[in-house]
């Protein structure tokens, strides 16, 4: 096995019996099961892992977790490649292929690094200053900028993986399975409460997995974790989710999780499982045990590969054994970093010195380090880092008495690892996502969660609210679990809180937001604040000088905190530097409001299985199979698939539609009209109700008769139309447009429940309880007569706009004599289970009449020939009945109906509104474009004054010419005028006519 030169021979949580092969930038390396890509690279001595975004500076691994700004990876190949993943969170698997990003041609030779040389010319606010003016300059620079900037590349092929979605609810959702979260889960779980415990890492345990010496309940930390996990696993109502990030906290304790189900197995292994799963969890209480993120110190050239957070080095040493042989210098302003010094020494790292910014640290950990022989250089600062592609050493200088500068005596220390700790910032992201405030704590010099919002039931514990001592975290967790469960009524015992003996006390940290150097900030080395977006302390100063001083201005001017890491390691440092420049308290600069997601979420989890055929339901009628078998071409009408036309062999769409349209006026035709919306309305106040929702009068409609109605919104605009029939005194059958069915149903219910609740009327959607087929044409009566014995079909017995119950082809039907074509027509309604039988019987009996099935296109042409409107085509929510020329349907006798008052508004009663008219082109073969704009006067080029648009346009084989309906300003008073339709380089003249083209006297309705 190829040597891993920095790997310790034993210890850590990796499995040395399971070596894994991987490539980074094409080179082969080996790591072990349990490694992250970052720990495996470090074990192999790879410190240079990326180039920065703007200056293309060489960068190494800074952290060991979600906050990583530098080590961004393009993972995987082909259709599974994924950009911008953090090496610190990628679990190693055999065959893993990783590429660094943002460099060309290679990490060590990167031409973009020239940006570093010309940096004086690309300061903060550079985009605003240089490229927005003059406009031509931006055009010139843009392609270079776009090429130079940019992260990884998205895949170009379709994602081959499956994703899943899951809804869950629980009593306690605990986010973070470190000491606080585990203690909470144990206490709550023991009472029988339903607990979900999530952690973004592959193993539960959080910071305890990086402990070398700590003991809980007399056990080594790792053993205590194992026992806790075993106890929790045995609890039936506790769900443990590792590899699961809580990325969003929405209203009313709704939390979104992303579970990485098979990512750690590589691209092949999880074929029978989803790759990732989106969880939407509703919890009665949410426990935020998300820990804290260490802040780097802001010192000169703090971004050289080999500069790392002190706690990260401790994790790599203790958990992964991947720091052996390194030579480290640590700079700190607090006691915590001494744990790193102590542990690293035990893990085979040479710690040359701890440079403490404090003048006289005397904490217990400091003393322990001193006792171990580690040199402590108090009252000093690292003023410079040597080395370009890797750290080779540091300069250390004594701080002046006020700590704001350094004296000249410089000492150089050779090393390849520079670790820093500037204190800890609680991970308040999820708390902040609830829109609750964060408040500044002087004690820990960090933002901690403020009061939770009313309506959200959550609690931040442990590191997430600035409590860092292990004993306190465990105690808080235990209390949160037992109290949370008790509040929800779980009376069981929570057991004993875990205890820690002998935890060293720590002294206060010293806030130092810019570590001074021998040169002024901005000259010489660079003090990086935001690594990923290349924002330095000098940039913050520039923003301050130019007046961008609030957090929102600072962010946008410098782009600080706006990279994919959302400034997890940089926000507080930037705010504090700005506060120092403004000489104000840190919170008065402002705080960052965190928004979802905490870390990036794949789009696949959002779609889950809702793609392809599962995206939207498909609705089919009972006759669908027949349509398919007879060659129908389908069109989508909402979720319905309806026959569009039925081409015969060799026919074009035009041929087929013309044939179908002609047949309806010469023989007998049949159309599947099942998709019409149908609402059953019953109750003593049903007629009263119809009077309110339709413009015409309904009280006197006799049972057995049908009437066309127009529905208006309260604004007077046409909303829906349809035929409604009176089944009996208190029983009506309403039809609506296909698309309007749910809308109308909701409309009726809303008015009934909210405005007229004491009216006795009931609405039931029966769209799918009735199948409908309409027979149209002069021979339709003749055909029906052959198949019924109990329904008289003559005009006297069965007049237009009435219905009859009886039997057809031996099964019960209700036949309406209504017409959407102007022809003699009958609409047969039946149970869906009988529909195919009746349809087939009609087709068989109709064969001798050459019965013709027709689709929606012929239906549209036929109704347009007669000038019948389609709501949503001739109307668009701004059209009144008068605009349509349908004043005849407005009951003069009624004192009230919805929309009535609006029709007398000054604007709605204008005589020159847009009116529905017909348009006939000079050339009868020219079919206008639907939606085409109409002008009265043609100009050389746009803009021209538009006076209306074409709403429907077809070739009418019955008129032997094209026909169109249009809405035209003052159209009814322009009959006979010629208007023009300029489009596609030509101008088509057309004459305004009445909106009716065929059977103008309406004689055909009786066959």
């Amino acid at each position, binding site marked *: 096995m190829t040597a891993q030169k920095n790997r310790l021979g034993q210890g850590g949580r990796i499995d040395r019996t399971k070596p894994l092969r991987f490539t980074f930038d094409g080179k082969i390396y080996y790591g072990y099961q349990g490694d992250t890509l970052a720990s495996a690279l470090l074990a192999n001595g790879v410190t240079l892992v990326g180039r920065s975004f703007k200056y293309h500076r060489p960068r190494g691994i800074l952290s060991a977790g979600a906050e990583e700004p530098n080590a961004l990876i393009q993972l995987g190949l082909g259709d599974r490649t994924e950009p911008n993943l953090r090496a610190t969170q990628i679990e190693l698997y055999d065959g893993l292929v990783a590429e660094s990003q943002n460099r060309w041609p290679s990490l060590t030779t990167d031409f973009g690094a020239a940006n570093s040389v010309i940096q004086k010319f690309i300061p903060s606010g550079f985009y605003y200053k240089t490229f927005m003016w003059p406009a031509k300059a931006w055009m010139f620079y843009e392609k270079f900028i776009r090429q130079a900037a940019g992260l990884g590349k998205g895949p170009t092929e379709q994602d081959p993986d499956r994703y899943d979605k899951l809804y869950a609810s629980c009593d306690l959702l605990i986010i973070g399975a470190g000491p606080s979260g585990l203690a909470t889960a144990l206490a709550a779980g023991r009472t029988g409460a339903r607990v979900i415990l999530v952690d973004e890492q592959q193993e539960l345990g959080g910071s305890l997995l990086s402990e070398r010496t700590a003991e809980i309940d007399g056990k080594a930390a790792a053993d205590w974790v194992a026992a806790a996990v075993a106890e929790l696993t045995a609890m039936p109502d506790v769900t443990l989710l590792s590899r699961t990030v809580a990325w969003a906290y929405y*209203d*009313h304790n*709704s939390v979104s999780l992303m579970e990485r189900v098979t990512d750690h197995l590589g691209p092949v292994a999880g074929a029978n499982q989803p790759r990732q799963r989106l969880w939407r969890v509703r919890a009665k209480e949410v426990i935020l045990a998300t820990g804290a993120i260490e802040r780097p110190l802001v010192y000169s050239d703090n971004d050289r590969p080999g500069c790392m957070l002190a706690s990260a080095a401790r994790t790599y040493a203790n958990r992964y054994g991947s720091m052996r042989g390194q030579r480290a210098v640590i700079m700190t302003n607090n006691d915590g970093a001494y744990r790193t010094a102590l542990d690293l020494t035990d893990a085979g790292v040479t710690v040359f010195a701890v440079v403490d910014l404090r003048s006289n640290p005397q904490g217990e950990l400091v003393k322990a380090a001193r006792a171990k022989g580690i040199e402590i250089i108090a009252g000093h600062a690292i003023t410079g880092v040597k080395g370009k592609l890797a750290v080779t050493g540091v300069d250390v200088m004594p701080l002046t008495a006020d700590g704001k500068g350094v004296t000249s005596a410089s000492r150089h220390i050779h090393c390849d690892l520079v670790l820093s700790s500037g204190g800890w910032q609680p991970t308040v992201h999820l708390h902040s996502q609830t*829109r609750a405030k964060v408040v500044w704590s002087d004690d820990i010099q960090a933002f901690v969660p403020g009061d939770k919002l*009313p309506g959200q039931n959550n609690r931040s514990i442990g590191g997430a609210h600035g409590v860092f001592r292990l004993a306190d975290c465990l105690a808080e967790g235990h209390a949160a679990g037992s109290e949370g469960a008790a509040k929800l009524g779980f009376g069981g015992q929570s057991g004993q809180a875990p205890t820690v003996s002998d935890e060293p006390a720590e002294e206060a940290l010293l806030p130092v937001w810019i570590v001074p150097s021998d040169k002024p900030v901005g000259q010489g080395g660079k003090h990086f604040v935001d690594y990923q977006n290349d924002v330095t302390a000098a940039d913050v100063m520039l923003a301050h000088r130019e007046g961008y001083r609030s957090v929102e201005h600072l962010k946008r001017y410098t782009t600080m905190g706006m990279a994919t890491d959302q400034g997890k390691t940089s926000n507080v440092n930037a705010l504090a530097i700005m506060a120092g420049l403004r000489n104000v308290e840190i919170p008065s600069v402002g705080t960052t409001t965190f928004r979802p997601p905490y870390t990036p979420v794949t789009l696949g989890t959002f779609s889950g299985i809702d793609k392809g055929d599962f995206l939207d339901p498909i609705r089919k009628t009972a006759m669908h199979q027949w349509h398919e078998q007879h060659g129908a071409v389908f069109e989508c009408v909402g979720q319905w698939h309806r026959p569009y036309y039925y081409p015969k062999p060799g026919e074009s769409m035009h041929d087929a539609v013309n044939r179908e349209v002609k047949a309806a006026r010469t023989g007998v035709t049949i159309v599947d009209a099942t998709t019409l919306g149908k609402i059953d309305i019953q109750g003593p106040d049903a007629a009263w109700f119809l009077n309110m929702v339709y413009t015409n009068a309904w009280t006197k409609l006799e049972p057995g008769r049908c009437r066309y109605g127009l529905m208006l919104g*309260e604004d007077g605009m046409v909303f829906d139309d349809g035929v409604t029939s009176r089944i009996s005194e208190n029983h009506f059958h309403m039809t609506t447009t296909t698309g309007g069915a749910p809308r109308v149903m909701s409309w009726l219910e809303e008015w009934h429940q909210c405005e007229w609740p004491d009216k006795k009327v009931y609405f039931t959607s029966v769209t799918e309880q009735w199948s409908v087929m309409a027979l149209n044409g002069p021979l339709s009566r003749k055909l029906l007569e052959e198949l019924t014995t109990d329904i008289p079909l003559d005009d006297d017995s069965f007049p237009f706009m009435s219905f009859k119950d009886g039997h057809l082809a031996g099964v019960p039907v209700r036949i309406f004599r209504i017409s959407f074509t102007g022809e003699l027509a009958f609409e047969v309604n039946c149970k869906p289970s009988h529909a195919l039988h009746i349809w087939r019987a009609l087709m068989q009996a109709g064969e001798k009449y050459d019965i013709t099935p027709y689709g929606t296109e012929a239906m549209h042409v036929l109704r347009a020939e007669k000038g019948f409107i389609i709501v949503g085509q001739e109307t668009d929510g701004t059209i009144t009945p008068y605009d349509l020329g349908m004043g005849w349907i407005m009951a003069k006798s009624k004192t009230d109906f919805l929309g009535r008052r609006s029709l007398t508004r000054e604007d709605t009663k204008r005589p020159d509104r847009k009116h529905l008219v017909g348009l006939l082109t000079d050339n009868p073969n020219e079919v206008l474009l639907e939606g085409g704009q109409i002008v009265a006067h043609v100009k050389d080029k746009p803009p021209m004054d538009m006076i209306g648009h074409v709403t429907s346009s077809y070739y009418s084989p019955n008129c032997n010419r094209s026909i169109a309906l249009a809405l035209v300003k003052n159209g009814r008073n322009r009959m006979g005028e010629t208007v023009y339709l300029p489009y596609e380089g030509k101008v088509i003249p057309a004459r305004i006519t009445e909106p009716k083209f065929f059977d103008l006297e309406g004689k055909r309705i009786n066959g």
Partner: protein
Amino acid sequence: MFLITCPYCGARDEHEFGYGHEAHIVRPTPAEYEQMSDAEWAQYLFMRKNPKGVHFERWVHTKGCRRWFNVARHTVTHEILAVYEMGKPAPQIDTEKK
């Protein structure tokens, strides 16, 4: 994603519900609206409160019992302070509540 307690079905996820608009807007009678100016009618028809604070609004349990009801919701915190049946008067809630 709100958790809304339907007065008829209990607590359900927001995606089961539809939002109406401000509650307690009474439709004028014909006798009243005949006397109203266009501006007054527009006030009824179009103008809705949009407070920063407690808002009385109506919701419908579209994918449940399909019944309308009223909700008092704080528009900043999204806290649901009351749920009550259609036709009931608005409960006393400190509308200055922040």
